[in-house]
């Protein structure tokens, strides 16, 4: 499949020498939802602005739809849709007026009604932008990004400020667009969003990609976790050695790549020793743990799984 987004050794250095993006390379094939995940300040927005062609990279190369999005802006823009982290709309225009303005600037724009329908803002079309809630503004921003039926869609934190229902609706919409062939690159710091939505994701830390793969691949390399509390009469030292348990007072945590075997051994021991494991909780690695591990470890080398 053709790669519609290509980043090769991408760098962005701000005046003053701060390196926000530090040698990123990745590609996104047509029809994929690709998520850039990272803590605040990881360099997600700085990266997306390079891909969108809002700024030239300090080093490396970007291609979107096979072209340079900064130098060939006029050729690329009609085929992409962009939602910035913070929408800039004149506060004194209504929702419908804002869409109309944007439609006049967009090749092959959807009708205003259809765009507002997509994001569920039909009932608010006569309302001034200044009167909208934060979530409604995000949805208006999304409507504008979708107006020209883009082939490539860039969404910078698309669901920030949305309530749970609004977030689900946006996910549904993004999936539907992907199923229709749209390529989507989004940034998020919501792990469940990346897990639920992304076909592939990259975890960014300090301007670099630390891990890249499908959500399953990223989590597969992480250990599962078992937690429980021992009764006061049972010291942690009585636990079988092979479990490699770590105790903090009565609280015990076991990290394992073989969840089923380890859990079986633990339960067999507990039955034999007649020990009740309070608050027993066993779970496979989640993206959240992978993410937190990475944020904690502050690793610099790129791990591609």
């Amino acid at each position: 499949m053709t790669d519609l987004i290509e980043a090769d050794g991408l760098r962005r250095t701000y005046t003053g020498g701060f390196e926000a993006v530090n040698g990123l390379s990745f590609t996104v094939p047509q029809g994929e939802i690709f998520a850039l995940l990272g803590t605040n300040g990881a360099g997600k927005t700085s990266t997306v602005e390079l891909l969108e062609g809002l700024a030239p990279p300090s080093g490396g190369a970007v291609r979107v739809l096979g072209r340079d999005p900064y130098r060939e802006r006029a050729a690329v823009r009609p085929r992409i849709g962009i939602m910035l982290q913070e929408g800039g709309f004149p506060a004194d225009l209504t929702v419908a007026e804002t869409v109309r303005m944007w439609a006049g600037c967009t090749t092959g724009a959807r009708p205003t009604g259809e765009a507002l329908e997509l994001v569920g803002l039909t009932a608010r079309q006569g309302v001034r932008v200044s009167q909208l809630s934060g979530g409604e503004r995000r949805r208006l921003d999304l409507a504008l990004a979708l107006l020209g039926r883009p082939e490539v869609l860039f969404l910078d934190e698309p669901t920030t400020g949305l309530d749970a229902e609004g977030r689900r609706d946006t996910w549904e919409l993004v999936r539907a667009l992907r199923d229709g062939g749209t390529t989507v690159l989004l940034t998020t710091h919501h792990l469940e969003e990346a897990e639920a939505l992304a076909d592939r994701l990259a975890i960014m830390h300090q301007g670099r990609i630390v891990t890249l793969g499908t959500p399953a691949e990223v989590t597969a390399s992480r250990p599962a976790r078992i937690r429980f509390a021992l009764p006061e009469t049972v010291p942690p030292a009585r636990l079988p050695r092979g479990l490699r348990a770590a105790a903090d007072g009565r609280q015990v945590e076991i990290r394992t790549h073989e969840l089923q075997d380890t859990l079986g051994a633990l339960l067999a021991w507990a039955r034999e020793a007649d020990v009740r494991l309070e608050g027993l909780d066993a779970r496979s690695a989640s993206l959240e743990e992978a993410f937190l591990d990475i944020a904690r470890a502050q690793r610099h080398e790129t791990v591609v799984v």
Partner: protein
Amino acid sequence: MAANTTARLGALGRAELTLLVRNRTALFVALLMPLSLVLVIRSSLDQVDLGAAGMSVIEAALTGGIGMVLLMVVHTNLVSAYVARREGLVLKRLRTGEPSDREILTGIALPSLALALAQCALLVTGGAALLDVRAPQRPVLLAAGVLLGLVLMTALAAATSAVTRSVDSAQLTTLPMFLVSAMGSGLFAPLQVFPERIASLCELLPLTGVMTLVRAGWLGGGDTKELLGAALTALAWTVISVFAVQRWFRWEPRR
């Protein structure tokens, strides 16, 4: 391609017109200030002997009024508009779309330019119909002067917005241009009544060339050499301003 440009400019201009109508202060300044300043100019001219300039008090006031329109409706108004759109992240958002940088700046300027043009037309026709002022002697020259003024004021406004941090500080950053032009470019009194050395210095100011073309176009007079010099001065300022915009214009707020 040309049709797309027209559509984009139309869409941007229409949105900006809506915003102008909803911004009472800006609308008030744009609609009433220039014409009321014509009255101020007129009363100040009672003290001046206009014999050397070859025009009546009301003619000097009305031609000065065109300069006022250019300054207030175009320059002052647009500095605020560009700064407000920049600080509201509107410029940044517009740049994610299809309009080119030039289309964005032009589209935002359109309502102010149209308003200024209408007021200039009002001054000319009103003066001729009601105030016994000469009809334009060389209409093409007058139109060229006004158009050059519109372009120059727009470019200067965009350049001025680069050094303006907020809409509030626009009141301050537009003041030098206003004062220098009002006093030095012959708005209140034609340069002919100034001492010669001061007058020749004032000829180099941004708006002076435009004013010379406007007065010669409307009232007649002015030899070719003088008009050529005026046109070149205005053009030079336009080129400098456009260069400044390309070099220093800010599309998003400082972080």
